């Protein structure tokens, strides 16, 4: 591990100023960053500890019905906040399907937005990785890539974004509120993470030193509260990243779909919003055929980046299933196995 400076600012302006120096990185709970530093993948020169910044640990309901969540709110605290879980059930379910109870108790929601890919080649210093070492190549491309991207990847990088939380956020048009030396701005979460293209080292739309101070979920998103699910395929029932996941939300009106929201996880370097698939459902009847068609559209551009063609078919099926579950309605309480196909919610229809 390299030697680094440790700075603990007292205010957001101080933090932003401290982080403007090149080589700086923000530290919150450290559930991802510290592992990366121990392994040598991250070698910051300055670590700016934001955990004591005041005012960033609140959940604030605004008059228009939207919610602002401070960046330092813990994943568990947000998921178990009654009003939040009732209003944005798919987000709460996604949070509880991630990591382990211990990690969720420590991890912050701002940190979750900023977590790095789990691509093994990104973590293995002896491997070529354009994301970690620009221009070095991508050893995942011809490597062990069964779980890599099927959408939005490039020859330079086939990594996926691992977050569960971000998937329903993108579906619900959530916005990150950001502070930087040039002032405050808003970045839609959908635009926060960047596809690799020719510069995979550019992982987010944040300018150097910019700090996510809060997350806003708009009032319009509350319309989906009754028909929203997050579903996650994984290789063990807990403490595993998604093979493929999906957030599906429907706004129903007189038995027909007024609006639909669909986003996929584990398929691309960012949570993948499927807008055309959503459009195909707007005004449509909620039928298995309509869901199957939406699933086809959502994956229309998908192509394998390696030994992962199965993920495309799996993604289609899980999109259709999640829409079916959303149509059946949000469960009264978060299921015992959050986001699992084996969640204890009865009545799941498996004809999808």
């Amino acid at each position, binding site marked *: *591990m390299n030697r680094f400076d440790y700075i603990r600012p007292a205010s957001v302006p101080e933090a932003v100023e401290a982080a403007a120096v090149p080589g700086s990185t923000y530290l919150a709970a450290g559930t991802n960053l510290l592992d990366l530093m121990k392994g040598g993948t991250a070698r910051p020169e300055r670590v700016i500890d934001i955990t004591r910044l005041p005012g960033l640990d609140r959940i604030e309901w605004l008059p228009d019905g939207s919610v602002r969540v401070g960046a330092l709110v813990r994943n568990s605290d947000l998921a178990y906040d009654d009003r939040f879980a009732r209003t944005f059930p798919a987000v709460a379910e996604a949070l509880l399907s991630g990591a382990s109870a211990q990690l969720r108790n420590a991890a912050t929601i701002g940190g979750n937005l900023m977590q790095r890919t789990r691509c093994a080649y990104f973590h293995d210093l*002896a*491997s070529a990785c354009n994301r970690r070492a620009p221009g070095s190549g991508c050893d995942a491309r011809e490597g062990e890539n069964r779980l890599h991207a099927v959408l939005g990847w490039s020859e330079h990088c086939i990594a996926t974004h691992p977050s569960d939380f971000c998937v329903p956020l993108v579906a619900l048009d959530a916005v990150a509120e950001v502070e930087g030396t040039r002032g405050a701005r808003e970045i839609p979460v959908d635009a926060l993470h960047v596809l690799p293209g020719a510069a995979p080292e550019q992982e987010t739309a944040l300018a150097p030193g910019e700090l996510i101070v809060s997350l806003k979920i708009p009032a319009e998103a509350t319309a989906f509260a009754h028909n929203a699910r997050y579903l996650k*395929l994984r290789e063990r029932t807990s403490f595993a990243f998604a093979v493929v996941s999906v957030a599906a939300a429907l706004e129903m009106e007189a038995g027909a779909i007024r609006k639909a929201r669909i986003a996929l996880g584990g398929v691309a370097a960012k949570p993948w919003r499927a807008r055309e698939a959503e459009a195909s459902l707007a005004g449509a009847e909620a039928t298995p055929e309509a869901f199957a068609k939406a699933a086809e559209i959502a994956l229309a551009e998908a192509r394998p980046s390696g030994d992962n063609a199965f993920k495309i078919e799996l993604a289609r099926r899980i999109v259709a299933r999640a829409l079916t579950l959303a149509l059946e309605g949000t469960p009264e309480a978060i299921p015992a*196995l959050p986001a699992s196909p084996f969640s204890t919610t009865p009545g799941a229809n498996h004809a999808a």
Partner: protein
Amino acid sequence: MPLETTSPLPQHRRHGSSAGQPLTRRDGVLKVTGRATYAADNHPDGILYAVTAVSSIARGRVTALDVEAAKAHPGVVEVLTPANRPPLAHDPDEKMPPFGFRVEVLQDDTVRYVNQPIAIVIAETLEAATEGAALLNPVYEVEPARTDLESGKRFDPEGIGIGAPARTAHGDIEAGLAAAVRVTEADYVTPPQYHNAMEPHAVVAQWDGDRVTIDMPNQTLALSCASYAAYFGIPAENVLIRSPFLGGGFGSKAILNGPQILAILAARMLNRPVKLALTRAQMYGPVGHRGRTWQKLRLGVDEEGRLTALHHQALCTTSSFDEFLEPAANASLPLYASPAILAEHEGLRLDVGTPGPMRAPGLASGSAALEVAMDEAAEACGMDPLDFRLANYAETEPVTGKPFSSKALRECYAEGAKRFGWSGRPLAPRTMRDENGFLIGWGMGTAVFHCPHFPAEARATLRADGTALMETAGADMGQGAWTALAQIAAEALGLDPDQVELHSGISSLPDGGIAGGSGHTASAGLALHNAGEDAIARLAELATNDPASPLFGAGNIGVVARSGRLHRRDDESRGESYAEILARAGRSDVVGTAKTARDPAVASAHAMYSHGAVFAEVKVDPDLGQIRVARLVGAFAAGRIINPRLVRSQYFGGMIWGASFALHEEAIADRRTGRIMNADLAEYHVPVNADVPSLDAILIPEDDPHVNPIGVKGVGEIGITGTVGAIANAVWHATGVRVRRFPVRVEDLLISREFA
């Protein structure tokens, strides 16, 4: 989520003894309060920290190391490389009997696998040693890595496992196949797996002249002392190993490895205590693993569904420089009757660390393939899988014809099937669904494990206050040895376990044998039992020769030890306490000893195994291919049960490991470099609680008069066997898809929808 444990704990009180009682672990409170001292918890004064630098290539040479940069780092004391590594008295490229492997201890600059130590950095702090190792910046001359069937080198091994023959034949296999009305043939693949004990391999070594004290988790104390003595050119009695607790071993702490030897060497060179603990990632290489296998089975079956031939071939990986081949095909030797059985092994050399014994070596991989093949043969015959196994029940050991010392497998089948509800199982796959539309499948497998017995010694001291001290150098890896062994000792002494102090886990005590092969309770237990009886006999001699004792002259009639008293066999009212006998004799104690081993005559006359039957229910999402083990029921017969609570826990652990083998566990190596791409517990998946929601283990009574005088068989490994196949067979029964590669993956079940 709580485990369902519907079986009541049996309480077989034997002669009023403590054996058979479900006592909780003696060391439980220490462990849950963090006061149990594991090797890396030791901090002797003046300690230095060692960190190994490891290779990132699988084959080639290290051509340069920046030793100067490492040494220049503040706190770094020394850097050992092949250029300055002090000599060892034993050639590390020579195997050390009885099962020492060739080890990598900087004998030269060659690299033979990924994560091989290429230098060791010793520093005043762990952080400095870690950074020093990172600064070495090795330069390699890289040769292509041989990582798979195509690039590996095949060979005919001289032996497999630890000293077993590579080929075992009974009858004429081709004639058996020719006589069959139906032949089932299939290929199976099992992945590389790593032990991943929770506690990493750690060592704290301190030298005093030519004597060394080693704190380390160790499954073979006495053998290890001899081996370290050979490496360091000192007498075995100069090596003291302290291993009071092991955070799991599973075979990986039974064999010497390079990093630990290097740390001990560094302590001697620098004349200061040295601590080393491998990181999780560094455990994927120098400390053994379960090698990959490619297996082929051919089963010939007659009109009645009886085997006419059982042919099991296994291609097993080993390293480029040493041999440990999973004796996988030998899983077909002890279980099913057939006029012709052939087990054959071939080796495949890859650029990997040498594999080694890992919980249920051979049988775990081999049973996985055999039990699926048996299921496929039953399917081909249109028979229920349990009926098919019963039709091929072996009344004597199939290959040798020897009688079994005991075999309550029929009872295991019957009780397990009953508890599980097997009788309602439809033959055809994909016919059962739950109320939510998930596919349900039921599968089963037979479990079997051999009963080795290791030489062991023990000492029993009856003390003036009527309590006792029992001593043997055994190992508690978490299985509860300290508790079960104390129960055996207490029984032999006629005392309550609370009155018996058990000393173990340190090599200066009498040799407790090997904690491996599921043979520790039997081996160390018999030594304790006999030592206890010896002490009682000596005490009885004092009493029966003392005219002042109520037992005077009872020598011919005999005396019985119970509840801290000796009394006449023919009259319970005539007796006295141990304390009274010792006090009158003016003795502070009486000491008994024992040195035990298996009686070779009994051993050669009998086949000795634990048996069991495992039944699995899985649920499978018909569209998404997600699998969940809904229920596991195992019924096991393993001779006399000393502590049913601990035994059930061992069965649970084994069955969960079986679920892991079937559905989760796999080391993923990059085909080009050999580097393990999931060498951490986030990505190398072992089951979580939610993966196995319902477990039941039934303890089938079994009295074995031959296996050893205390009637104890092994329980530590058998739970894996049978379970892997049971789950895979249940997946087939749920889906109609026969997966022959482990672990079963989601994509294996993404079948076309016309089935649904």
